[in-house]
């Protein structure tokens, strides 16, 4: 066995020099793939964000006619789809790709080539969805949930492209999830037991389990929708034995675990950052792991709360109860974050600011959710702007703040340069104010009964609140530009970031910034879930300076 290996290594031709572009296009290095995931997310973030700004401009005043009804429907549908499947989820996959192997002390993902395939399927799927805008009839316009019979009746290829695109994206995320699970189960460095994995790895593991179990159910639904549109099946046609409920149930059986796929990774990022910037260990590490797993398990039992008002749910109180129940482990997370900060030496660097912003904003989104889980309340606010406020407090105030926290936290590791602090503060301030200005007023609009997904409204007093929301949306746009400016400014500086600029806990800080292609020249001994912290402590005790300050910079 070894003989053949050695022989293969000996006779391997010397690697040919590739151009930088070809190198990136053909890479199987998890770090490069991780960065490509992030770039891909930003590209689709720009598209989806532009759609959002167009919609907000349309809604800035009553009876506006900037865009037609048909175009508005397409914008609202594709905005939701892109942000969920092509922006937020891949952001978290990108960080997962880059940092899971580093955090467990592995050389790469378990299946590097499948990893590259998972990535490349993403832009293909995303562009398939977006290409709908260039076919007669326009893009998918039945909402990101594509409810039947509307989605079956929509003419033109846009909806078919949406279905195909999502199937491709689904395959991408299933392959990626399998890769993550095998990597974490099989590729951990010696000493790195499951319960010594950094908490971000646990969040990625939980996410991946959800993807493996829930995403294929969506694929089956999408295939039925495709067959319904193209091959004359009658899955959703009550006259021929079908039922609209079949789509609703397959979609939401996936759809609610999906919400947790979109937030678990951000929880993981924030649970990494808060201990580092509070100079304390994560309070109740095992409790957080259990909470992640409980939430993932429970997330399969709540889907019908999306369908309370349809009259198809036989037992409202069951699904209300499971939904309330899931807020218990979520509450445990909040408790642990606050307990971690309690009496800690808190450093308000940009990553920590975004993490704190996350905790506050996600709390609002979470409480919205608990409140809405009551069927009585749900009937009142269903399909109003209240729901739009809720989802954005969870996914933007939640995940995007978490992603930005991760961006500031891990940027030095990925690019060898710490993002500019001052611009970072501006970015945070603008994003925080802009976000709240946009989405808080939507609670009010929702309570006043303004329906979501409508192209315009008559002059009934909603104008001012909508205008405020639109101004906020532009502020968010500016804040993202400030972030990109920060990236450009920082990348033009020399790469002087030390291996461990923040005083981190997990293994990614034990290698140079950026890490070499093989990740680690040497691994510190792993006896707890904070090997880098342990090493720093041991070095301090033995009188030498911390490793972070000694490391030369590449």
């Amino acid at each position, binding site marked *: *066995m070894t003989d*053949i290996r050695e022989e293969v290594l000996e006779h391997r031709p010397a690697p040919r020099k590739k151009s930088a572009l070809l190198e990136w296009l053909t890479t199987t290095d998890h770090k490069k793939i991780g960065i490509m995931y992030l770039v891909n997310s930003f590209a689709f973030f720009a598209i989806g964000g532009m759609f959002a700004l167009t919609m907000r401009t349309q809604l800035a005043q009553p009876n506006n006619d900037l865009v037609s009804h048909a175009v508005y429907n397409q914008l609202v549908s594709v905005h939701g789809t892109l942000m969920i499947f092509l922006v937020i989820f891949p952001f978290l996959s990108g960080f997962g790709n880059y940092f899971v192997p580093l955090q467990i*002390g592995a*050389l790469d993902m*378990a*299946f590097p080539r*499948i990893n590259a395939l998972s990535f490349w399927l993403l832009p293909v799927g995303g562009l398939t969805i977006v290409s709908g805008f260039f076919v007669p009839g326009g893009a998918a316009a039945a909402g990101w949930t594509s409810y039947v019979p509307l989605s079956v009746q929509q003419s033109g290829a846009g909806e078919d492209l949406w279905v195909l695109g999502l199937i491709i994206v689904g395959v991408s995320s*299933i392959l990626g*999830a*399998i*890769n993550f*699970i*095998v990597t974490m*189960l*099989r*590729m951990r*460095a*010696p000493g790195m037991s499951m319960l010594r994995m950094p908490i971000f790895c646990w969040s990625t593991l939980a996410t991946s389990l959800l993807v*493996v*179990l*829930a*995403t*294929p*159910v*969506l*694929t*089956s*639904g999408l*295939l*039925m929708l495709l*067959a*319904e549109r193209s*091959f*004359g*099946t*009658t*899955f959703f*046609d009550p006259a*021929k*034995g*079908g*039922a609209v*409920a*079949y789509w609703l*149930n*397959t979609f939401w*059986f996936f759809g609610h675990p999906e919400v947790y796929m979109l937030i678990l990774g951000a929880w993981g990022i924030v649970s990494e950052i808060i201990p580092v910037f509070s100079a304390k260990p994560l309070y109740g590490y095992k409790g957080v792991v259990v909470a992640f797993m409980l939430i993932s398990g429970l997330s399969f039992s709540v889907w019908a709360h999306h369908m309370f008002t349809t009259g198809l749910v036989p037992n409202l109180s069951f699904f209300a109860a499971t939904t309330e129940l899931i807020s218990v482990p979520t509450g445990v997370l909040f408790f642990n974050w606050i307990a971690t900060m309690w009496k800690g030496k808190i450093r308000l660097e940009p990553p920590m600011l975004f993490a704190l912003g996350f905790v506050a904003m996600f709390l609002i989104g979470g409480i919205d959710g608990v409140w809405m889980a009551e069927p009585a309340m749900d009937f009142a606010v269903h399909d109003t702007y209240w729901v739009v406020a809720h989802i954005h407090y969870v996914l933007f105030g939640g995940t995007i703040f978490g992603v930005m926290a991760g961006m500031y936290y891990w940027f030095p590791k990925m690019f060898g340069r710490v993002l500019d602090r001052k611009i970072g503060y501006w970015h945070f301030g603008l994003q925080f104010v802009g976000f709240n200005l946009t989405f808080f007023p939507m609670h009010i609009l929702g309570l006043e009964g303004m329906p979501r997904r409508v192209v315009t409204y008559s002059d009934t007093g909603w104008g001012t609140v909508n205008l405020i929301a639109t101004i906020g949306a532009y502020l968010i746009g500016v804040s993202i530009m400030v972030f990109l400016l920060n990236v450009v400014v920082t990348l033009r500086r020399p790469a002087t970031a030390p291996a461990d600029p923040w005083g981190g806990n997990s293994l990614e800080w034990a290698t140079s910034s950026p890490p070499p292609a*093989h990740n*680690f*020249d*040497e*691994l510190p001994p792993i006896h707890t879930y904070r090997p880098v912290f342990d090493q720093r402590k041991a070095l301090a005790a033995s009188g030498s300076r911390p490793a972070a300050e000694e490391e030369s910079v590449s």
Partner: protein
Amino acid sequence: MSENSATALDHRAVQQTSNSVLGMVLFVISEAMFFMGFFAVYFSAYASAKIWPPRAIAIPPIGLPTAGVLVLLGSVATMALASRAGRNRDRSMITWTAATLVLAIVFAVILLGSYRGLGFHTGTDIYGSLFWVLSMVALAHVIGGIVFFVLVLIQARAGELEVRHDPLQAASIYWNFVAIIGVVLYATFYLANVGAS
């Protein structure tokens, strides 16, 4: 590379279950959930129908599908023999894999044959929709298996299976899953109709 990670590599190399086999197990779990989506619809439709299969559906003949399922079970047996031979690094694994490939092709041909002249189409009723979509999806999985076996045979010819057993093991896991789906579909769409008019 440091000694540390080098030992880690060797340590992994001697472990029993390979990454590919674990990956295949997860893939098959994911596939099972994919089929669950269709079966959930099937059983919901079944539960809410008074007559099943619906009157509009001409009950398909059971002869050819029965032959098909027997061939499928035969291929499971040859697959098991191939897998066992592979574990023992026995060259007969190539013969048994090739036999499985042939049986898989025969099964695919029988499937295609059994779809000829059916008295209903995708739009006849949700029964027709489920029958055709599930059949086509299953057929796609059989074709996937055929491609898989061809790839494994190419690896075997190159002598790669002398040093690693996992491609054959992964193929075996996948094919057993396809066989389970095939048998379940046979039971659902043919066996369950015996005696119905």
